[in-house]
């Protein structure tokens, strides 16, 4: 136990002190900060230039009078940010030429023209501009036009103001999910759903990132120890098992420490007032953070990490040169990728049969099961079964890996084939 602690400490500190680790952590912290601040930065930049000056669009006059009415509608100032300028001329061609000229001058951003009204229906509207309408501007133009259309139709139908008001009233809609057991399990509120969604994303990305990063790190270190022959000295001092699990646990702790740094960086960034507003506007509040879900996040992160890490260790033990490592860990990388994509697919279909099945398959279950817990309502026994299977497979693969490891670390030369490994394993037993 004492020696296990020694291995863990050595693994941990050597990496913490390594420049590469510091640099990587710093880069990720920077990226994280940028990513968190990006939404309010973008709105700060585009929002200022867009909303203060507003936007002027040209309106071609047409015979039916839609154009003039729209110009009046925009002029009455329901939306000050969008102004309309009526371009009247004797013919449609002429007014279009005038519009194009104004467009070139930059006095208008674009112009709308109304098509011919068919059977009394509202005519099609065309918007022409130099650059593509995007984001907020598109939304604004479209919304203004829709409001105009509604007013027009209301007037045409001759509705009373009260009737018009009723028509405009938005639907009061409250989506709430309920548990399988009906009333007993309180359904998740909308903000809780959002937080769950967020946590599921966090786990999927985290597990994939950390697993690939640290799995490869474990394999690389073991191969390096092997190729520098420190391994022979190490395993003559302690049992290969202690060495392997010490390394895996050391890396696990290192990963957790790094995570802590990331979480701290994220927390600092999120506490910036601008970001607080952003979060509030999304309707998320931290008091909605379901603690049970955070607990599950930890459980599935740790089990998932451990499962992959031990196998990475075994693969690392089979390779004698770091150059061969990439090829050897390829299948594991694919497994990780598969787990990642299964989860990404599952986010939108947490109840799909495929995801249900995957939530019991050890290599995919950390992601798939957590996703179901977060976004759906699996029964307790389903969660328990998934965890039991996961733990059992950790034991099995840990045992397998340990066996491979003991033999692998002493095998040199070319990368051994499975047949050779199998043979060596048998020889070891005898």
């Amino acid at each position, binding site marked *: 136990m004492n020696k296990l602690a020694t291995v863990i400490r050595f693994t941990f500190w050597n990496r913490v002190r390594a420049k590469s680790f510091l640099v990587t952590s710093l880069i990720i912290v920077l990226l994280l900060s940028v990513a968190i601040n990006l939404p309010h930065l973008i709105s700060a930049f585009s929002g200022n230039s867009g909303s203060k000056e507003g936007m002027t669009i040209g309106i071609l006059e047409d015979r039916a009078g839609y154009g003039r009415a729209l110009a009046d509608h925009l002029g009455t100032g329901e939306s000050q940010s969008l102004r309309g300028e009526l371009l009247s001329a004797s013919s449609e061609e002429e007014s279009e030429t005038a519009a194009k000229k104004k467009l070139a001058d930059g006095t208008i951003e674009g112009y709308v023209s109304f098509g011919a009204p068919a059977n009394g229906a509202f005519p099609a509207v065309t918007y022409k501009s130099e650059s593509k309408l995007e984001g907020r501007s598109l939304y604004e133009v479209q919304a203004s036009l829709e409001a105009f259309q509604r007013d027009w139709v209301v007037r045409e139908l001759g509705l009373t103001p009260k009737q018009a008001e009723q028509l405009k009233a938005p639907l009061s809609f409250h989506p709430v999910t309920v548990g399988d057991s009906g009333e007993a399990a309180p359904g998740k509120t909308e903000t809780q759903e959002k937080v769950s969604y967020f946590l599921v994303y966090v786990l999927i990305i985290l597990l994939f990132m950390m697993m690939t990063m640290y799995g490869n790190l474990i394999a690389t270190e073991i191969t390096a120890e092997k190729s520098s022959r420190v391994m022979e*000295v190490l395993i003559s001092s302690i049992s290969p098992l202690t060495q392997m699990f010490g390394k895996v646990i050391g890396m696990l702790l290192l990963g957790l420490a790094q995570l802590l740094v990331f979480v701290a960086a994220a927390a600092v960034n999120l506490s910036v007032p601008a970001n607080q507003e952003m979060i509030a506007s999304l309707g998320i509040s931290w008091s909605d953070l379901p603690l049970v879900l955070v607990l599950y996040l930890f459980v599935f992160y740790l089990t998932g990490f451990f499962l992959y890490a031990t196998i990475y260790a075994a693969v690392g033990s089979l390779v004698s040169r770091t150059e061969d490592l990439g090829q050897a860990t390829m299948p594991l990388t694919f497994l990780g990728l598969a787990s990642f994509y299964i989860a990404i697919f599952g986010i939108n279909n947490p109840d799909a049969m495929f995801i249900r099945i995957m939530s019991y398959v050890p290599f995919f279950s950390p992601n798939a099961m957590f996703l179901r817990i977060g976004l759906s309502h699996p029964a307790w026994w389903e969660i328990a079964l998934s965890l039991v299977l996961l733990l059992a497979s950790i034991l099995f693969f840990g045992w397998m890996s340990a066996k491979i490891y003991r033999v692998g670390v*002493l095998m040199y030369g070319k990368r051994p084939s499975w047949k050779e490994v199998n043979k060596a394993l048998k020889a070891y037993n005898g």
Partner: protein
Amino acid sequence: MTTLQLDRVTKQYGDKTAVNAISLEVRQGEIFGLLGGNGAGKTTTMRMVLGLIYPDAGQILWKGKPYRNELRSQMGYLPEERGLYPKIKVSEQILYLAELRGLSRQEADRNLKRWLDRFRVPEYYDKRVEELSKGNQQKIQFIASVIHDPDILILDEAFSGLDPVNVELLKETVLELRGEGKTILFSSHRMDHVEELCENICILHRSNTVLKGSLREIKQSFPKERVLLETDRPVEGLEQIPGVLAVKRKENGTELRIGSDKAARLILETAMQQAAVNRFQVMEPTLNEIFIKKVGDPHE
């Protein structure tokens, strides 16, 4: 007292026999020479002695008992190839290895400083291994194998990569450790080192033991085939003496190969008739010659 006892130990890898029924005994305070060409089974034997792999047949006894975990802190190992972390400071990795062998950090630190002083390189304490020359890395490797004061020491090519001054330094150290009562299993390609250090040897060839026993007895059992002759002026007609197989004239004298003891006397007589003899010696075969005879070229 026999510290290390191998009894018909066999190890197979698949269909290939790596070590075939090797038996040897090493007493406390003895340096035992394990010799053999590349791929003869030396490393496999050492790994079995270290408990890294188990024999398929036969048994190994350490201090009269089978393998147990506490042996790990009582054995020291110097692997044939460098076994150090290249990018980690000397002090850090030696202390780590010592801790794994069951030493406390303070004790390990004291021992490390003592050893560095002794090898006259105290400034390496804070250096990274990759900054050191090959010979100095070997010194650090040696320290790694003795830092925990082991009873059983396994040295695989301990002197490789060292200059003559450092070879002497390490040789002295090894002899001193023997004096302290350590049991040492020693392998080398350099037969002169083995001759200087070992009392008993075992020569392996293609997994089999070809020669085993006390070095002196082995040497005596081989015929004396070499005669060294130094005279004040050249001696004629040596080739015609019956029993002389070859004559090699060198700067400092003549070396002759003989087929029988009688030839030696005839050589001396012939020489004395023609010149004053400064030196006449019937040479024992060197270990190098014995090895080549038994195994072929050791540096294949």
